[in-house]
């Protein structure tokens, strides 16, 4: 890639520029195809009838398009003795994900701000400890965490799940913000201190406005992790607080039941819609980050 100067720099003939731009777009398009391939399979499957899936190829266009599977996935598929699809579980996931994302992003931003700009003896050790914490396998955490949640009296509740997600998201949000803030010159903080601005004031009026791209990254990461989490969701919930991934799992995973792949695929896409929504909306702010970035220096 290094020998391709596809960017519109000066000194290139318009013809060469056109060729380079074309190559660029073809490359981007090919990658897009790679990323879209499984989605293609999922969508076509979701539009087939079960008979067609059973008799035909799995990876082919539907002979006859039907949206029955989508309807079933949303409001008719059995997730237990209730057959109401994934619909009733969306609210639980939202109630868990939204506060957990907000809290962990905010704390992560403050942590990152301290570690990058208000260093003190031990702050780097703190950061290292946080980082290593990112590597703890969640399978290890399940059982002791269950005990702790029981002792705290929040076992099986939504606040309990929010708590767990905040705890294990902090390492990442702290990391993202620290690595972003560390490239902001410390003179900025020093100058503001001289002007009499305090800890929170500097954070609020200088750092936060610069943080849009990294907030986007942190939110995307946290929202994706929490929304798609199954292990915590299944272990620390009870009837009535199960998130949408558990419902999806219940629709999809059956050892001895009849499998309905079309419903499975539709349910998976439906369950992913909120995350996709976040990507589309949040993605826009990457561009705004361009403007924010130029403030620095």
């Amino acid at each position, binding site marked *: 890639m290094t020998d391709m100067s596809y960017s519109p720099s000066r000194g290139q003939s318009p013809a060469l520029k056109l060729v380079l731009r074309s190559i660029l777009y073809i490359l981007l398009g090919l990658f897009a195809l790679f990323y879209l391939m499984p989605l293609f399979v999922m969508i076509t499957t979701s539009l087939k009838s079960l008979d067609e899936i059973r008799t035909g190829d799995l990876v082919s266009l539907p002979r006859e398009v039907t949206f029955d599977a989508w309807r079933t996935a949303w409001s008719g598929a059995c997730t237990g003795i209730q057959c109401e699809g994934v619909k009733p579980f969306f609210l639980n996931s939202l109630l868990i994900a939204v506060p957990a994302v907000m809290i962990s992003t905010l704390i992560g931003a403050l942590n990152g701000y301290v570690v990058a700009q208000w260093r003190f003896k031990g702050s780097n050790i703190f950061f290292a400890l946080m980082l290593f914490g990112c590597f703890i396998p969640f399978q290890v955490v399940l059982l002791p965490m269950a005990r702790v949640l029981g002792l705290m009296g929040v076992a099986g509740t939504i606040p309990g799940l929010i708590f767990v997600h905040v705890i294990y998201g902090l390492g990442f949000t702290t990391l993202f913000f*620290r690595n972003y803030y560390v490239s902001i010159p410390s003179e900025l903080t020093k100058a503001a201190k001289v002007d009499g601005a305090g800890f929170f004031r500097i954070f609020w009026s200088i750092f936060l406005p610069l943080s849009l791209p990294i907030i986007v990254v942190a939110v995307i990461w946290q929202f994706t992790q929490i929304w798609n989490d199954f292990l915590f969701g299944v272990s620390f919930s009870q009837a009535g607080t199960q998130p949408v991934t558990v419902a999806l799992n219940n629709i999809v995973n059956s050892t001895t039941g009849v499998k309905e792949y079309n419903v499975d695929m539709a349910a998976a896409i439906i369950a992913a819609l909120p995350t996709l929504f976040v990507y589309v909306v949040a993605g826009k702010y990457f561009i705004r980050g*361009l403007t924010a970035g130029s403030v620095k220096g």
Partner: protein
Amino acid sequence: MTRWLQDNMPKIVLAPSFIAVMVFVYGFIAWTAWVSLTRSRLMPRYEIDSFIQYERLASSPRFEVAMTNLFIFGALFIVIAMVLGLLLAILLDQKIRTEGAIRTIYLYPMALSMIVTGTAWKWILNPELGIEATVQGWGFANFEFNWLVDPDMAIYTVVLAAIWQSSGFVMALFLAGLRSVDEEIIKAAQVDGIPTWRVYSAIIIPSMAPIFLSAFIVLAHLAIKSFDLVIALTGGGPGYATDLPATYMYAMAFSRGDIGQAASSAMVMMLVVFAIVVPYLYSELRTKDD
């Protein structure tokens, strides 16, 4: 009092996170270490027994496969996803008109739960259903792509699906980094007639060192915890050829009621991971530390 508060505000702000990490990460690791020395079966027990669990682990051919797979999978996944993510970010940074749409296409795999996407991948990679059959259908009768059902190659299909899932996020990280690089510096360089690729390789990429650290941690974390992916794509098979420590651990703790064994495998895995990650982090943090 306010003075003291002001001076110590950074520490006060970090304190809750510090306590949380000490309890919920290091406390739990200590708990795991303890349990790994017991004969816990269905539920954790606390009577220290011996190093029997580690001895059992050492003579488990399946765990050996799982650790080998972790190295193969981890190394390939981290390197390829990082390179691909950076490449995509740079390509996307060329003032692309449809950037929003393309960016979302690259990112969306993260949104899908692997429980189901794994099934789609399984079909695509399956020789009689997916790519191999399709390409052969185009007239290339000798085309072969049967990694999924080949015990020696199946782990690479896990790498492929994992890259598919996560490289978009790495791209997002790098894109955020590229967007925060000072435009003025780039313009100045271009005015001086420095070619674009030099601008990237000499100015922009070096300035993104912290982003590489973030990407590394995120990818390493995903590699170590890859679980749904393996379960959905290969179920650890053929045989147990694509088992990873995380799936091994889960199987021991929750399907087999052998929690002591699971704890010991977790300890071994964490030790190995720390042995690799700690030096990297140490060097990274030191250079940033003037």
